[in-house]
């Protein structure tokens, strides 16, 4: 391993800029003549828009324009779309309701935008907005997914009777039923996977500018995938042809999925900028983020796991109601189906699995992918069931897991996923040892002596990353391919620009991608610039989510580097007057095998551009290559997390007091960055399990609409993590990378809740296990520390 290459803990190049406040985000950009836009949003969850009277506002100081949903509709632009078609059991397509960027006729959730005011300053826009009179007829609302499909529930969209988007399923119901009939033990659980608000540090933002001379539009946008944004806004919304629309995603301060999607605000900014021939900027305020950023999770699930007399799992049945909110967001349909049910085999051999998913509309903020997207929900189902089964069967939870692990690879699960490589027991055993599992009983006694209840919980999770093989996702209904692109552009002096279709918003690509390139070419890391996030600079690409940038994005860079090296060898052969086959490239030097004749990387790069020494009829001048890499399979990161909690029975507070994570991410490019991703992921998972509570009242008002009521995890909510790895290479990509971005958030909720329920001695508690709910659970069980 070199000091900068794959496996080296190189310091992040981007941190200097970020930590010293020199990042450059969408809101930092200002254009001449720029106006501010303010969105007037429905205060009701479900209401008919009767009239909008803007006369009192129109003449207010600074006002440049006031537009309603009706006016937006007159321009006949297309709707926002969900780009992944899911079919119901009966073969009928999902019921995608129209989603206009500005609601006309009816508002379907609190925060649904019904009009906009554009003015010289934001304060003026807000002043005028207060004078816009919107008259609503308030309708009954439904927010609980379990009640959305019931007879008599308020109907949100005409196209979706019973508010049902699809009734989907996967697996063989008859064979699964048969397995259950022959089972000797069945564990049944019901749970809610709580709705989460994403809370990226940088709120969403959009700045749109129209250039009348060229007829083209530019959108600066806090986006995880600017090319996809351009494609959707061009091809589906019809805002402008793709070549007349540039989308730039500059520094982006966190996404966690919420900035994948194409939202109304960017569409309206573009529309208004052209209409007024003036740049228009919007930056969400935090309270707007709460009611407009696509939320995550929100499942209500009933699940059963069946065992034979030897403690082997023989079957799994899952029924989930997934709340997709008021509209179908960009990838929402795939999250509770293909990203969820396909992972229900967990790390185990489960011969028969049957999963049904009913997706429903409710009068809430749309729900879409959020760190882990479907996989945390699946891991929660499987790992809670396994843990509770172990308790019911009286088997050590580690032993029950080991007994059921998939041990031979490749392994075809009964829910479509084909696990290519792994060693699940290796992660488990290493975690048990690092965590001092044997010492738990003693630690528990110590806690009890101090009047506390202690619990331990496991999560042997698996996930599917590296999204994704294009033809496979095409068969599953995706509207796009999920390959990734790269261009490696060598400059005459030997420095390099790498253009990637991935997008970094906290992941550290500027460092890790540069590590790969610098190491391969034998140049300094500073000589490599990673460019991303501008459709005018970078070739088409699919962006960053689903832990795909290492496995897919870096693979594309490898392929492009292969081509660069091949061409550079040809040129070196001419420079060194040797046969191409004799050229060896190592440590930044081209050598003629068996001689001391060599040319440095920089000489060959210059030679490529000077083009004096080779026949340009055979070899084109220049040194720049690109690649579009399509993966052949998903990747399957997996691992074992162990959580230990201590519960104060007097206050109900559950403190996480120990955490061990042993993950198998395949090849690790930068262990420091990977460890950071694990920390962050676990923090988010602990947040879901103990703190983050999204509460709507029955009228559809978001009760937890600010940090006064919505608890984010903070450093003092978390213990010191013990993070380690086991490594099995991913066989399907050239670097052997599996991906690490979501693992912590996938493993943590189940690990925490297994620990909390172990401490409490009851399974009847949902996330988040807040002090109040833990205390209430203890009132029901009357469990007290033994020594107390």
């Amino acid at each position, binding site marked *: 391993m070199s000091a900068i290459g794959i496996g080296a803990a190189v310091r992040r190049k981007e941190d200097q800029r970020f930590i010293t406040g020199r990042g450059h985000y969408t809101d930092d950009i200002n254009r001449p003549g720029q106006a501010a836009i303010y969105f007037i949003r429905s205060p009701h969850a479900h209401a008919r828009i009767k009239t909008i009277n803007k006369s009192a506002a129109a003449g207010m100081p600074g006002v440049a324009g006031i537009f309603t949903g009706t006016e937006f509709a007159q321009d006949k632009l297309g709707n926002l779309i969900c780009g992944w078609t899911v079919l119901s059991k009966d073969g009928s397509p999902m019921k995608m309701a129209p989603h206009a960027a500005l609601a006309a006729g009816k508002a379907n959730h609190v925060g649904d935008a019904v009009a906009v005011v554009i003015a010289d300053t934001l304060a003026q826009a807000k002043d005028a907005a207060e004078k816009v009179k919107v008259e609503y007829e308030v309708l009954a609302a439904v927010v609980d997914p379990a009640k959305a499909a019931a007879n008599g529930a308020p109907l949100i969209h005409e196209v979706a009777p019973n508010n049902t988007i699809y009734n989907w399923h996967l697996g063989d119901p008859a064979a699964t039923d048969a397995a259950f009939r022959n089972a000797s033990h069945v564990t049944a659980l019901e749970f809610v996977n709580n709705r989460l608000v994403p809370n990226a540090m940088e709120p969403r933002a959009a700045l749109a500018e129209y250039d009348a001379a060229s007829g083209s539009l530019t959108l600066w946008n806090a986006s995880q995938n600017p090319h996809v944004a351009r494609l959707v806004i061009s091809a589906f919304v019809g805002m402008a042809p793709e070549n007349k629309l540039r989308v730039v995603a500059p520094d982006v301060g966190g996404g966690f999925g919420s900035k994948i999607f194409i939202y109304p605000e960017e569409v309206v900014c573009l529309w208004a900028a052209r209409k007024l021939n003036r740049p228009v900027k919007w930056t969400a305020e935090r309270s707007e983020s709460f009611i407009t950023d696509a939320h995550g999770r929100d499942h209500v699930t009933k699940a059963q796991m069946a065992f034979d007399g030897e403690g082997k799992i023989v079957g799994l049945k899952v029924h989930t109601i997934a709340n997709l909110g008021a509209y179908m967001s960009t990838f929402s349909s795939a999250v509770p189906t293909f990203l969820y049910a396909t992972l229900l085999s967990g790390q185990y051999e489960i011969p028969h699995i049957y999963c049904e998913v009913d997706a429903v509309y409710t009068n809430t903020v749309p729900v879409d992918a959020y760190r882990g997207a479907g996989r945390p929900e699946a891991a929660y189902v499987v790992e809670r069931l396994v843990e509770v089964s172990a308790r019911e069967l009286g088997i050590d939870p580690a032993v029950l897991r080991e007994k059921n692990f998939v041990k031979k690879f490749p392994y075809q699960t009964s829910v479509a996923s084909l696990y290519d490589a792994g060693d699940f027991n290796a992660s488990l055993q290493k975690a048990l040892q690092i965590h001092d599992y044997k010492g738990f009983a003693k630690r528990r006694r110590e806690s009890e002596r101090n009047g506390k209840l202690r619990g331990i919980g496991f999560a042997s999770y698996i996930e599917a990353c590296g999204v994704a093989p294009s033809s496979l996702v095409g068969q599953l209904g995706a509207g796009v391919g999920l390959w990734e692109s790269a261009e490696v552009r060598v400059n005459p002096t030997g420095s390099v620009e790498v253009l990637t279709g991935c997008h970094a918003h906290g992941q550290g690509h500027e460092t890790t991608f540069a590590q790969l390139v610098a190491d391969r070419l034998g140049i300094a890391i500073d000589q490599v610039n990673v460019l991303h996030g501008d459709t005018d600079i970078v070739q088409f690409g699919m962006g960053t989510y689903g832990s795909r940038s290492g496995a897919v994005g870096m693979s594309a860079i490898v392929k492009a580097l292969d081509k660069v090296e091949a061409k550079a060898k040809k040129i070196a052969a001419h420079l060194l007057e040797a046969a191409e086959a004799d050229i060896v490239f190592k440590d930044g030097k081209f050598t003629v095998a068996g001689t001391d004749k060599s040319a440095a990387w920089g000489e060959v790069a210059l030679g490529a551009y000077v083009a004096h020494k080779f026949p340009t009829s055979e070899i084109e001048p220049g040194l720049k290559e690109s690649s579009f890499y399509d993966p052949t399979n998903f990747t399957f990161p997996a691992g074992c997390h162990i959580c230990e909690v201590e519960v104060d029975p007097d*206050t109900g507070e559950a403190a996480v007091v120990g955490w061990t994570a042993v993950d198998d991410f395949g090849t690790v490019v930068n262990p420091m960055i990977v460890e950071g991703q694990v920390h962050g992921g676990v923090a988010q998972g602990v947040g879901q399990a103990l703190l983050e*509570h999204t*509460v709507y009242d029955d009228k559809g008002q978001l009760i937890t609409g600010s*940090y*006064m009521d919505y608890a984010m995890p903070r450093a003092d909510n978390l213990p010191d993590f013990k993070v380690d790895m086991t490594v099995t290479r991913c066989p399907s990509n050239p670097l052997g990378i599996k991906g690490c971005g979501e693992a912590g958030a996938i493993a943590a909720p189940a690990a925490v809740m297994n620990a909390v329920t172990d401490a409490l001695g009851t399974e009847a508690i949902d996330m988040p296990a807040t*002090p*109040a709910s833990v*205390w*209430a659970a203890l009132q029901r069980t009357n469990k007290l520390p033994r020594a107390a």
Partner: protein
Amino acid sequence: MYAFTFHRPQTLRQAVGLLAKNEEAKLLAGGHTLLPTMKLRLAGPPQLVDLSLVDGLSGIELRGRSLSIGAMTRHNDVNTSPVVHEAIPALAKLAGLIGDPAVRHMGTIGGSIANNDPNADYPAACLGLGATIITNKRRIKADDFFTGMFSTALEPAEIITKVSFPIPKKAAYQKFKNQASRFALVGVFVSKRGSDIRLAVTGAGANGVFRVPSFEEALKTRFSPKSLEGMSIPADGMNSDIHGSAEYRAHLVGVLARRAVAEAIGK
């Protein structure tokens, strides 16, 4: 935020004059309650009277058997003051439990008690120590000052200048934080000064900070957590919301009261 006129008086008299002249004017201290509500357009005072340049409003002083803290004294200054640590360590600790460093460097004791947020910390200390709130007009006993959530005995154009805390023999504050806001879900301040025992609760009550006479009586017999064993307060009148039921809050009052007494006697 709505537009407003900003005044920066140099003396208390000028400040009072500005308030008297402009009925809807608001005093600005640390701004950590007032400014967020103005930014959200929930408040729109046409005039702001900033107290930061007014002489003599901040500072900490030991005067005989009481500790006097100027209204504009920042939470951080109370938290780190050797004088407070010496005289009433529980008060220094309380100030350090408020918000985060940014809040503690801006927020003031005068602003906090004038605001009387039902989940704020200082009101518990004022009531739990039997403080006197001193204004430009008069001296008000803490028992008479806090009159319900977000309401106080302050009259129009009345400015808190300082708070005077009698120095107790023993005192402690126990705060159980709301996980989201980290204000007090329930906070209990207990003190003992001769035979005077006070136990005040913030966060729990639907009507703001309150004392618990039954607990105080029990502690008069013996100032020990044992005296409170098995005692509780009724859930009636407790706040109930997504962070905790009235029963839970009532229960926490008992738990935190016992812990506070234990801390006060150094156990």
